């Protein structure tokens, strides 16, 4: 509304200017006409000619055109000025609105934010940060951020802050902070630096915290439940195992051949139960993310050979043609031997289980740049084409595998994939029914 009023004013001023200068021109024209008529004014070169009158007429026309242009110029000037003012006020309003929006988002965000100065002092805590730390803005402002971390974490936090000061952000560090009332909360701590003036060095850092205390507590409860459930399941299994061993050792009396045979079956069944409990436990831990990765220099060839030793009896029973190809330059690899062992165990035991007597088994470990490849190839059953996309799915067993061998959980390859991906690697396979399968795991060195 205001703008349209200003536009009308500009038009009125321009029209008035046009009328004013047009009137001046008309007066000048009339005066000039009068002077010519009285002979008081003569143009010598054009004296008493029509040209004299024409020139005056042309001058009058030029005057009108100039008047029109001047009025238009005035109109444009007024309009531009008005628009510039309008733009400036709109930009100011937008800037204020933007600032207001930023402050509202910053202050009311459910994620705690803090600005951290070069000397690790806290500035501008938002409302969520005040709730997290249990302090008022006045109490939290200017406090040293390091004072809120556990003593054991201080070195680590200082290293992180130094990194940010050098322009390197960090993300998702799981740490504990101590609130004003002494309670400890688990947080995901992230931080990046920003500059208020281009080219200027570290100005400040924005620290964000995500409170994950409840998630941690749930994880803890789940982990404890899984551990205790495994403990309770294993206790009777250990008793069966040991009493079967005592009976089989004949220290408590002899056994008939038939009793011995039955005892072996009891023992084998119990061992299978132990394996099942261990497998379910591993799956739970992998899924919960509580199976810690313990990376250490590992001789992967030695590890593979130890798995071969475990499967020696089954391999001998099936008269396999074995081919082992180990890269000579593959020395120690930084990996978790316990987890990698599970990968080897599952791939090898599947190959042994699903390859008929007299079949071939090839295992290759080779180094390729910054990776190492594990290849397990067999001449076994193969995987039916229409089931190949499900082979890494939890509890899935291919129809031909199920028909041949009833024992099996369908968890082996699921575990393999989870572990390989946990290591940052990948696993693939090619398979031809009744010809065999080749699994290839690619892992970082």
């Amino acid at each position, binding site marked *: 509304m205001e703008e349209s009023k200003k536009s009308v004013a500009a038009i009125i001023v321009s029209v008035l200017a046009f009328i004013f200068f047009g009137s001046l021109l008309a007066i000048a024209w009339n005066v000039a006409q009068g002077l010519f008529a009285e002979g008081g004014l003569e143009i010598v070169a054009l004296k008493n000619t029509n040209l004299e009158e024409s020139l005056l007429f042309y001058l009058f026309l030029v005057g009108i055109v100039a008047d029109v242009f001047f009025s238009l110029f005035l109109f444009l000037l007024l309009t531009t000025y008005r628009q510039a003012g309008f733009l400036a006020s709109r930009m100011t309003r937008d800037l204020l609105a933007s600032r207001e929006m930023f402050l509202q988002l910053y202050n009311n965000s459910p994620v705690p934010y803090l600005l951290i100065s070069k000397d690790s002092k806290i500035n501008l805590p938002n409302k969520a940060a005040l709730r997290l730390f249990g302090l008022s803005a006045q109490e939290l402002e200017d406090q040293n951020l390091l004072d809120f971390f556990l003593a054991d974490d201080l070195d680590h936090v200082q290293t992180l802050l130094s990194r940010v000061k050098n322009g390197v952000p960090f993300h998702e560090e799981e740490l504990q902070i101590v609130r004003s009332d002494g309670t400890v909360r688990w947080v995901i701590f992230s931080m990046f630096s920003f500059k208020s003036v281009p080219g200027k060095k570290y100005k400040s850092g924005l620290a964000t915290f995500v409170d994950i205390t409840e998630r941690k507590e749930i994880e803890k409860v789940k*982990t404890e439940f*899984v*551990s*205790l459930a*495994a*403990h309770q399941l*294993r*206790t*009777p*299994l*250990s*008793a069966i*195992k*040991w*009493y079967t*061993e*005592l009976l089989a*050792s004949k*220290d*408590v009396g002899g056994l008939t051949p038939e009793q011995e045979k039955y005892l072996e079956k009891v023992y084998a069944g119990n061992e299978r139960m*132990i394996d099942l*409990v*261990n497998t379910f436990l591993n799956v739970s*831990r992998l899924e919960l993310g*509580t*199976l*810690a990765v313990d990376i250490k220099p590992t001789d992967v060839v030695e590890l593979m050979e130890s798995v071969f030793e475990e499967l020696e009896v089954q391999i001998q029973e099936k008269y396999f043609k074995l081919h082992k190809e180990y890269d000579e330059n593959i020395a120690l690899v930084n990996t978790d031997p316990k987890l990698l062992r599970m990968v080897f165990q599952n791939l090898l035991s599947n190959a042994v289980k699903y390859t008929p007597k007299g079949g071939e088994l090839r295992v290759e470990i080779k180094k390729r740049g910054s990776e190492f490849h594990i290849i397990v190839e067999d001449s076994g059953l193969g995987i039916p084409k229409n089931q190949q996309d499900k082979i890494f799915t939890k509890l899935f067993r291919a129809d031909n595998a199920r028909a041949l061998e009833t024992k099996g959980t369908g968890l082996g390859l699921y575990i393999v994939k989870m572990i390989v991906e946990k290591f940052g690697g990948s696993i693939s396979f090619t398979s031809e029914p009744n010809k065999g399968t080749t699994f290839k795991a690619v892992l970082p060195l």
Partner: protein
Amino acid sequence: MIDKKLILIIDEEPDITDALSQKLEQEGFSTIAAYNGEQGLMIIHGEPKPDLILLDLVMPTMDGFKMLEELRKDEWGRKVPVIFLTNLDDEETVSKVMKDKGYEYLVKTEWKIEDVVSKVKEKLEGK
């Protein structure tokens, strides 16, 4: 009379303590059983003192962690060999127990009973 080494087995399950006692005694050891940490401590504070302790972790009244803490409080308790024989094998428990070097940690289902006895012998021989 041959001086037999005394093994204290602390485990809440009588089936487990009985099987272990049976095998260890066959192998020439004396054994004594306790079914929780508190009973274990009572035996330790009396005489004769055991030469080695087989200790479970999950037990009523006083669990294996608390029992170990109490055990460490005196000079003798810091020196007596301890083998953890349990079915807990989560990372947190293992690292909690293994913080102090010199302890063996065996998961029952993963060990044959004769191998447990071999471990006891090794530990007593200071290997």
